[in-house]
């Protein structure tokens, strides 16, 4: 394989792993906001316990996902130096906004939220979670703005052999950005809803004594999925006219590219239908007493994640052979680095991320099996003390 192929494979692998963590982070933080708001207003213990239990899973996932993001960011410079050289002035602006406005602040607010448990005024503590969620979504906003520029470059002028930033506002009203952002945000909320539904169902299968706790969680998961999926599908289909206009050859970029797209749509439609069929069954907990749907809910957990990876494959592979559509070819952007060096980093990071994903899964599974606390325990970033 050439350096370009290896670098592309590495980018695909890093992005996919990173995105799995991101989806769950964004989905869970949205649900946490609802739970903690209810706790802060009502003061009811069940909402506090829910915030703790789901918050712990959120923190585990965030803490391990953070490192995939670091590698992701370095990768632009390591393997794709041609991108910064040519378009750093334009593409770099939203990327730097993401690291400064979003990630830098998000981690700090989250740190305050974690260490502030029981030590801060509860309204202040709630405000910290709102800020964490807000900056998490700001992260998605800037990353999608940067990606939108690669799909449909706007707001630049050519100056010699580099691009200059001409109109920052154009980057933010880019049609390749706006509809995709809505799509990604609702995909994350769907992933959170399906995850919460599945975990709660697992506890009912195991005949949990925490009936009230998981009943509320299961309802919240189902309702969230039912509300998010129509918006998700709407924002998905809204992208086809945009694609037809700006990337007419997208569906011909690879002969098999229609397959992931088809599977993604199928999963999205399936989740919408199932969640809406489940809604009436929430009455008098019919869905829990029937038991059979509980197994389907557990099996359903990976589907939003698989669909999300398929969606990215369509969006990113469909852009080829361009890195910046119509302006910079992928093969011209790759760093002048020996293929063997890229191979080494590909092998090392794929192995490490695979291990990290397994560890994430194992730790979340352990936290799930332990169930909610009977006695209050601290929510700590050090996973082992959780």
């Amino acid at each position, binding site marked *: 394989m050439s350096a370009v192929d290896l670098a592309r494979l590495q980018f695909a692998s890093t992005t996919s792993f990173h995105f799995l963590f991101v989806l769950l982070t964004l989905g869970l933080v949205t649900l946490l906001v609802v739970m903690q708001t209810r706790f802060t207003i009502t003061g009811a213990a069940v909402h506090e316990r829910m915030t703790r239990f789901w918050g712990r899973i959120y923190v585990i996932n965030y*803490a391990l996902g*953070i*490192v995939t993001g*670091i590698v992701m960011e370095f990768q632009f410079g390591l393997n794709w130096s041609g991108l910064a*050289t040519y378009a750093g002035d334009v593409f770099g602006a939203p990327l730097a906004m993401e690291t400064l406005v979003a990630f830098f602040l998000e981690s*700090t607010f989250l740190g305050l939220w974690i260490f502030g448990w029981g*030590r*801060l005024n509860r309204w202040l503590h709630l405000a910290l979670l709102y800020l964490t969620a807000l900056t998490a979504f700001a992260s998605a906003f800037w990353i999608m703005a940067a990606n939108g520029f690669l799909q449909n470059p706007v707001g630049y002028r050519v100056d010699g052999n580099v691009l200059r930033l001409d109109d920052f506002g154009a980057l933010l009203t880019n049609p390749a950005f706006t509809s995709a952002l809505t799509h990604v945000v609702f995909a994350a909320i769907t992933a959170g809803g399906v995850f919460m539904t599945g975990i709660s169902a697992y506890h009912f299968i195991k005949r949990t004594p925490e009936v009230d706790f998981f009943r509320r969680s299961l309802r919240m998961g189902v309702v969230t999925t039912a509300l998010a999926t129509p918006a998700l599908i709407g924002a998905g289909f809204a992208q086809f006219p945009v694609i037809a206009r700006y990337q007419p050859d997208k569906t011909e970029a690879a002969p098999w590219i229609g397959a992931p797209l088809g599977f993604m749509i199928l999963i999205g439609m399936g989740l919408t239908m199932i969640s809406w069929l489940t809604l009436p069954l929430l009455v008098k907990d019919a869905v829990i007493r029937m038991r059979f749907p509980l197994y389907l809910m557990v099996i359903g957990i990976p589907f939003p994640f698989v669909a999300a990876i398929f969606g990215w494959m369509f969006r990113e592979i469909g852009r080829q052979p361009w890195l910046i559509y119509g302006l910079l070819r992928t093969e011209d952007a790759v760093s002048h680095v020996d293929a063997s060096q890229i191979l080494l980093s590909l092998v090392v990071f794929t192995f490490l991320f695979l291990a990290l994903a397994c560890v994430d899964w194992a730790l979340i599974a352990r936290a799930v099996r332990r169930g909610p606390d009977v006695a209050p325990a601290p929510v700590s*970033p050090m996973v082992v003390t959780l």
Partner: protein
Amino acid sequence: METLWLTVLGVLTVGYFALAGFDYGSGLLLALPRRYVSSHRKRDETYRLVTPFFLGNEVWLVAAIGVLFAAFPRLEGELLSGAHSTFTLLLAGLVLFMAAVQLRLWWWLVFTGALMVSVGWGLFLAHLLHAPWPVALVMPVLFAVHGWVFQTRRWKLFPVTALLCALPIPLAFSSIDVTGLMAHDDTLGLLAWVAVPIIPLVVLAQWSIVAISSR
């Protein structure tokens, strides 16, 4: 603009190394028999002390690389890809260190992660200075000393060792002539409005984390 952005980059880099130095240093000290790290005997205590700082340091690194990309686009790619395998070592160490500390895996895994990161920064320092590779050992030694000062709570020495960890890379970096490698003023002006107010905000918030958690 040039001075402003070199200052921003410098502050972020110094912030990272000052915060991360005792993290990695504490990891390196795990290899020593406990009695040399005098004030406490158990490894758990080592981990407990670094906890409040744990999520705090890597964000400075991420912010620094973000600024490097946007403000110095013609430099970022050449700088990173020019030391490709060094960064593979460093980042692999970072992943290993963060995962191993959080999971409290075997101490030698934490140690290996810390060693990979610090030797990685050392190799990068040698690369920047065009110096022979043994220069790389400077960074693990400085980190270990800083970690020892932190673990034994010698707070008077702490600012000194923090500076010793923080300065080598920015100083070596300052030998690079950035003329013509920076972004256009249109990009820089826009980003300045964001970068300048955010840094003090993060410092304040991170200081609060440490203050709250030691209460």
